[in-house]
């Protein structure tokens, strides 16, 4: 705890103005009477403390991180270095267009690249993350129905396997979320969809490949059904990495999509963010795109705001979203180019299918063995849980001991004892083989010495934590040393 290094009066002196001034023109009752309790440490103490904290993390730079649905691929260093050029870092968000042409050129070209690779009519870059993109997308669906005075539409359909953000975003836009079951083959249950569709349907939110790691084969039919009922189709771009340069959401019949640039376009995940969740739309939703957007008249770039786009759903952040993330994604896109984009889906799919095959050969069960894996796949450890009493969580924790970040566990909810594994395209074959060996070893441990697995992890900075206590005896801020 940084506060434990704190001593009264100690400071990293070089960091603040040398002289202090008293703001005597501010009335005393408006001023602070005591200083806030912040750490009082030297610069070296701070550097050591936070360096040590960083070393308690697993990260892409240090470990294999096959966290399904999160696309934890390598983040090229050039993207950070070049996005941190002084001219870009020091640009004020309200700088006039005359001092913004270089920056706006990057954003405009990124809009164009994303438009092309997703097959959409227009793109707005402003949403700050996937969930904000979802919000924007559903809000546009609502604006479209409202503009047509088609106001009886009250429901958004979401598959039962969807990310939690989908139903939560629908509710934030004032809709009810209605679940559609997934069939035994991993595709959506079309009969159930037909029953659910009606004059109350505003739209459907789908991920494709879906969260169970397979391509929704009847997507065209789904699009026709939803459109025939007067609803619109929303594409959750969480799994865009699987199809980049192969098939485009716009061609599948989607009306609106979001992309997760921190997944598909390799911007860093940063311990939970920031991300960027640009939205793309077909022609009929174009007027509703969130502002600001960048326009180009052949010689100059300029911002499009509420004044230029009166039907826009509006603004989602004070300025233009997570600009620095967008710049990193732009640099990544320029490094990759069009050939690179094809390679992303090819190699991520190759890695996933190879890993799945090898794990099946090693005695693990796939949740959908008859299906082709996309860029990720689901294992179910039902058998191990039942026969050996060692469950998915135990496997996940034991993986940490072997220096691998656990795949996503217990999601999607409809597959029991599931591990959602996404190796990404940037892992070498040797790393995949190593993962197979580790999984095989853990399986043997589960058979021969199950307690070792059930008590894991053994080598982390802490062992399993008491989550119940964390929630019951809330301790959310340091209160001082006892």
């Amino acid at each position, binding site marked *: 705890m940084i506060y434990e290094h704190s001593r009264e009066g100690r400071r*990293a002196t*070089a960091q603040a*103005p040398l002289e202090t*001034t008293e703001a005597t023109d501010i009335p005393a009752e408006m001023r602070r*009477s005591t*200083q*806030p309790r*912040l750490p009082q440490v030297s*610069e070296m103490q701070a550097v050591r403390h936070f360096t040590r*904290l960083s070393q308690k993390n*697993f*990260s892409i730079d*240090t470990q294999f991180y096959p966290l399904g649905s999160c696309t*934890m691929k390598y*983040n090229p260093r050039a993207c950070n270095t*070049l996005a941190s050029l002084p*001219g*870009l870092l*020091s640009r*004020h968000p*309200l*700088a006039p267009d005359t001092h913004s042409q270089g920056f706006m*050129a990057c954003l405009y070209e990124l809009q164009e690249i994303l438009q092309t690779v997703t097959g959409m009519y227009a793109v707005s870059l402003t949403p700050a*993350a996937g*969930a*904000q993109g979802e*919000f924007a997308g559903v809000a546009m669906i609502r604006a479209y129905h409202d503009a047509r005075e088609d106001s009886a539409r009250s429901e958004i359909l979401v598959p039962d396997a969807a*990310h939690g*953000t989908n139903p*939560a975003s629908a*509710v*934030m*836009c*004032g809709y009810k979320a209605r679940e559609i079951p997934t069939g035994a083959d991993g595709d959506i249950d079309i009969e159930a969809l037909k029953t659910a569709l009606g004059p109350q349907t505003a739209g459907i939110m789908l991920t494709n490949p879906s969260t169970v790691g397979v391509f929704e084969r009847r997507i065209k039919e789904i699009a026709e059904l939803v459109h025939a009922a007067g609803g619109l189709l929303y594409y959750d771009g969480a799994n865009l990495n699987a199809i980049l340069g*192969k098939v485009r959401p716009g061609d599948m019949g989607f009306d609106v999509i979001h992309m997760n640039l921190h997944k598909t376009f390799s911007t860093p*995940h*940063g*311990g*939970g*963010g*920031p991300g960027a969740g640009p939205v793309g739309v077909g022609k009929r939703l174009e007027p509703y795109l*969130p502002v600001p957007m960048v326009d180009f008249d052949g010689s100059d770039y300029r911002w499009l705001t509420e004044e230029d786009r009166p039907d826009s759903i*509006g*603004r989602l*952040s*004070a*300025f233009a979203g*997570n*600009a620095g*993330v967008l710049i990193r994604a732009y640099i990544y*896109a320029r490094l990759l180019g*069009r050939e690179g984009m094809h390679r992303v889906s090819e190699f991520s*799919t190759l890695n996933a299918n190879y890993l799945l*095959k090898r794990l099946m050969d090693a005695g693990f069960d796939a949740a959908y063995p008859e*299906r*082709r894996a996309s860029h990720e796949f689901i294992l179910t450890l039902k058998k191990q849980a039942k026969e050996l009493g060692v469950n998915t969580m135990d496997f996940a924790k034991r993986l940490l001991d072997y220096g691998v970040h656990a795949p996503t566990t217990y999601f999607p909810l409809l597959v029991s004892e599931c591990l959602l594994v996404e190796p990404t395209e940037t892992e070498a074959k040797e790393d995949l083989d190593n993962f197979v060996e580790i999984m095989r070893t853990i399986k043997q441990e589960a058979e021969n010495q199950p307690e070792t697995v059930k008590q894991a992890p053994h080598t*982390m900075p802490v062992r399993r*934590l008491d989550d119940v206590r964390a929630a019951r005896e809330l301790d*959310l*801020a340091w209160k001082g040393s006892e």
Partner: protein
Amino acid sequence: MLATIGVGHIDALFDEIPMALRCGELEAIPPGMPEMEVSRLMQARARIDGQPLCFIGAGAYDHHIPAAVWELTTRGEFYTAYTPYQAEASQGTLQLLYEYQSMMTALIGMDVSNASLYDGASALAEAVLMAVRGNRKSKSKRILLPRSLHPAYRRVVRTIVRNQRVELVEVGYDGNTGLIDREDLEKHGGEDFAALVIPQPNFFGVLEAVDGLTDWAHLHGMLAIAVVNPLAMAMLKPAGEWGEQGADICCGEGQPLGAPLASGGPYFGFLCSTGKLVRQMPGRIIGKTVDVDGKTGYALTLQAREQHIRRSKATSNICTNQGLMVTAATIHMTLMGAEGLQRVAAASHANTGKLTQALTALPGVEPVFEGAVFHERVLRLPIEANKALRALAAHNVLGGFDLSVDYPELGDALLVCATELRNEDDIENYRGKLERVIQSQVQTPCRLKPDW
């Protein structure tokens, strides 16, 4: 690898995607470039935008960031980790976030803080929704929103809460002081509102009478939502101490705590509240706990508020937040300490005072509002604000934010800001250039041809 899978060609891996849907060569996307060429391109782009001398604030502030902040923040172990779902392998991020929560609650003077939202404006939208859910005394979904609040914040809140039928009612400002107009506010005293939003400082830089406003809100059964500049909190009374009981919720833009201007993002929104409201809070929260051996550890807690558990019943749809920016802010606050932040706040306050003095010495330039400010000030010009800014920009000075679009009633008014980074030479540079711009605009232009 293909042989192991049992296919002959990589295309076979896509055999479940109907052929009719496949796309072709994406000609419109440029071919890939090696790093050195992308580097040349980006350097050229960064160069043409110049690095003008900046006196714009308006929600994003140019402060010194200690070198160690981003050296540490961009360590791969912070930069390339994800949301700490596996707590045992994420103790670094989790402990850091707990330390962040500890520092924010100390700075704001409140019980709890979440681990960040996207930015200040969207944080206010979440605060508004939180107040609607959390105010047991009020049945209404109405919120009082002052016009002295950042115009972009008002727009963002509207975009985000509109579809949940939350009604935003604007309160005017006093033309002499720039403060929330108490007469206008009193008109709503008898009505049912969930909350009153109180900015400190407000968009004009002016310090609101926060104690009275907070008490007024509570007297009328409303929650008080504070929107503050966190740097100002190092110098001004913290939101948790406003009035008799303190504000209930406090949010704002975290950028002044270690995030570079960077064209508007990524920054981070912070959100603090009283302990009573913690279960209404959106976003991640970290709790301290113990492991099976009784050793201290940190974990995501109260997850039943969040979308990945509660789905459609969650407090918000937020998932990815601004973790890396919070990492920077935590290191920034550690290095600056309370004393350092207070000095930066005081220096910015003093520099804006010097800037005001220098500029108002020019003929026709005058302050619009009386009363104390933090580090921004509204000045009226004797010439068109927009033209003045363009002329200054041509001389590489960004002279402030033009208020005439959002507040036409103020005339040719600019919002200016001089942080601790603007020294006396910079201020003199601005003054000299503005003087010449005013002279050239006020003087009758020479006629090339006599008009007879």
